[in-house]
């Protein structure tokens, strides 16, 4: 442990005395303080607050991620090139500790920067503002739905012949990707129902509706939601996202507490995508608590990036390692939008291959690229404890451990010139 502590201290001193830590902290604080005056929102306080919450911490996270990942990639390779690493390697220290010490030092710096930024954010926003658990309806999986749709889709005369030529597996994969966009139509005086996993007893329940159709269609919506004893009316919706409060308590003793119904009393049909447009909001705790959980998730995300950068630094020369890590971070940031905007039904083979590669990369880099905790924090959505535990276990425990063990294997081999 003494050796580990000494390696951590050495890396911390290297960053403190090179003024890197000072510059990073100054830039982070400046960004957090200047952000509210430069942010251009939709003109509402709510919009400005959302943008500030997302981009202030998001900006600091991006800054910390890029600078520390580059530092991690350069740490081992720099000392190897300067032949200082060999002086540590001939001491009675396990190679794992050489990589782990540097990783922990950089993670400590990153965590300190993020905690500082989160502290400023808490001071500059209403930290007591509540956030919600967001529950989606319990529906069959997208794959089950895609399997069910396959025959109908293939018999449809409008299905392109190129798609017909594709294998069943490929078509089902495309249909599964499209499943979240399937609409459910609730006609006039009809009732639709969705089952939720809600088992609580709070009286602070809301239904969140998202409308992608035209404003005049939304305006005609008129109906009533019920969840057990709790009910709420909705009419003349002006916003694209409406939150309908339910009054009364829907408790676990009520057999209907898991089923949300909607009676359409309006003059026209209502179209909703159950996977995207309807959710049950259950009040959780405050923004301060949510911010703490989101920061923990960000630290965990940073951790896996640093461990990977450390592995690259152990395996490659400094410039190649830094270039590789920056390239991977750029790819990580770009792939979610590439996948979101891609045409999954593209008939060109090369397009389909490109889509598959982008999809694979997105899946692989999603823990970093999606920035889920920031998105949730900005929208007052609860960053769930179970998710935090899962992310921290994997990104702060399992993945870094594996990557550092790999680094430990690589360090002597790279020293050996391989």
């Amino acid at each position: 442990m003494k050796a580990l502590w000494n390696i951590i201290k050495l890396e911390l001193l290297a960053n403190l005395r090179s003024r890197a830590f000072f510059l990073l902290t100054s830039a982070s604080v400046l960004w957090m303080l200047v952000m509210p005056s430069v942010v251009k929102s939709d003109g509402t306080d709510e919009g400005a607050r959302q943008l500030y919450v997302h981009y202030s911490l998001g900006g600091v996270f991006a800054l910390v991620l890029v600078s520390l990942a580059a530092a991690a990639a350069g740490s081992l390779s720099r000392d190897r090139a300067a032949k200082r690493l060999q002086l540590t390697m001939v001491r009675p220290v396990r190679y794992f500790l050489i990589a782990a010490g540097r990783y922990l030092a950089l993670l400590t710096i990153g965590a300190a920067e993020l905690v500082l930024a989160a502290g400023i954010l808490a001071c500059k926003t209403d930290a007591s503002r509540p956030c919600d658990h967001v529950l989606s309806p319990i529906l069959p999986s997208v794959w089950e739905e895609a399997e069910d749709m396959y025959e109908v889709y293939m018999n449809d005369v409008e299905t392109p012949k190129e798609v017909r030529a594709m294998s069943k597996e490929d078509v089902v994969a495309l249909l599964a990707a499209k499943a979240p966009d399937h609409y459910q139509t609730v006609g006039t005086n009809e009732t639709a129902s969705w089952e939720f996993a809600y088992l609580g007893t709070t009286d602070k329940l809301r239904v969140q509706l998202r409308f992608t159709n035209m404003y005049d269609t939304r305006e005609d919506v008129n109906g009533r939601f019920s969840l057990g004893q709790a009910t709420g009316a909705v009419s003349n919706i002006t916003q694209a996202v409406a939150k309908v409060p339910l009054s009364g308590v829907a408790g676990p003793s009520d057999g209907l507490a898991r089923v949300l119904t909607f009676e359409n009393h309006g003059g026209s049909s209502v179209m909703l995508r159950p996977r995207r447009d309807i959710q049950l909001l259950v009040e959780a705790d405050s923004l301060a608590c949510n911010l703490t959980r989101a920061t923990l998730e960000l630290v965990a995300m940073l951790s896996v990036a640093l461990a990977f950068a450390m592995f690259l630094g152990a395996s490659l020369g400094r410039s190649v390692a830094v270039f590789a890590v920056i390239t991977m971070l750029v790819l990580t940031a770009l792939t979610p939008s590439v996948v979101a905007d891609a045409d999954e039904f593209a008939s060109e083979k090369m397009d389909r291959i490109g889509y598959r590669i982008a999809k694979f990369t997105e899946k692989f880099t999603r823990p970093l690229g999606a920035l889920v905790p920031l998105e949730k924090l900005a929208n007052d959505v609860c960053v769930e404890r179970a998710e935090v535990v899962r992310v921290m276990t994997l990104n702060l425990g399992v993945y870094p451990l594996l990557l550092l063990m790999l680094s430990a294997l690589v360090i002597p081999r790279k020293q050996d010139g391989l």
Partner: protein
Amino acid sequence: MVENVIELQGVEKTFRDFWLRPTVKAVAGLDLTVARGEVFGLLGPNGSGKSTTIKMILGLLSPSAGSVRLFGLSPRSVAARQRLGYLPELSYLHPFLTAKETLKYYAGLCNLDRRTAKERTSQLLAMVGLEDVANRAVGGFSKGMARRVALAASLIGKPELLVLDEPTSGLDPVSTNEVKTLVKTLAAGGMTILMTSHLLGDAEDVCSRIMIVNHGKSVAEGKIGEIGSSLNDFFLAKVGEGRDFEVAPFLK
């Protein structure tokens, strides 16, 4: 029975390029043993394979063939490295650390407790005459001062085997004499020392036994007192006289 601290048997080292094609055979079948308490000199011209041999002894390089044992263990084992001290040819210090922090860092790597580390740090700084600049960053040190810090760092763990690669490189004559005296004192205290040097006079002064390597092979080995001539003559006889530079025409 005399314990061998270092044992090399049929050691070969071939460096390869990116495509794993052999480029240089730096060591070609070297057998070497260093017994406890010896001061062993590994001598040879530039590119003869001395540094490669030392790196294999330190576990920094793995042999392509043959075996290297340190205290009967693999040189990469923590137990073997626990008993090892190393002074490289250049000091390779962390420039942002002070002399005191440098020694404490290496003391920590040797798992010394805080009190022992503090005691040894001040004793070693006094030994190499750097107490007055103990709190200055080593990045601003002269080559000779940095060399003294590196020497002190190599001794902080009280090693049983000290590997010195060109220990007097960059030192003035006074400091060179101090280092030679130190090596003799340490050897008298039972420490095993393996050193390389281009300065044959230095090796002659401190080594009890030498090996001359050329082209990765041992060309001579023996005790200093048994060579029969000066080490310089012996060396040239074994390695060759070399050639005079023919001055490039444009320089004439």
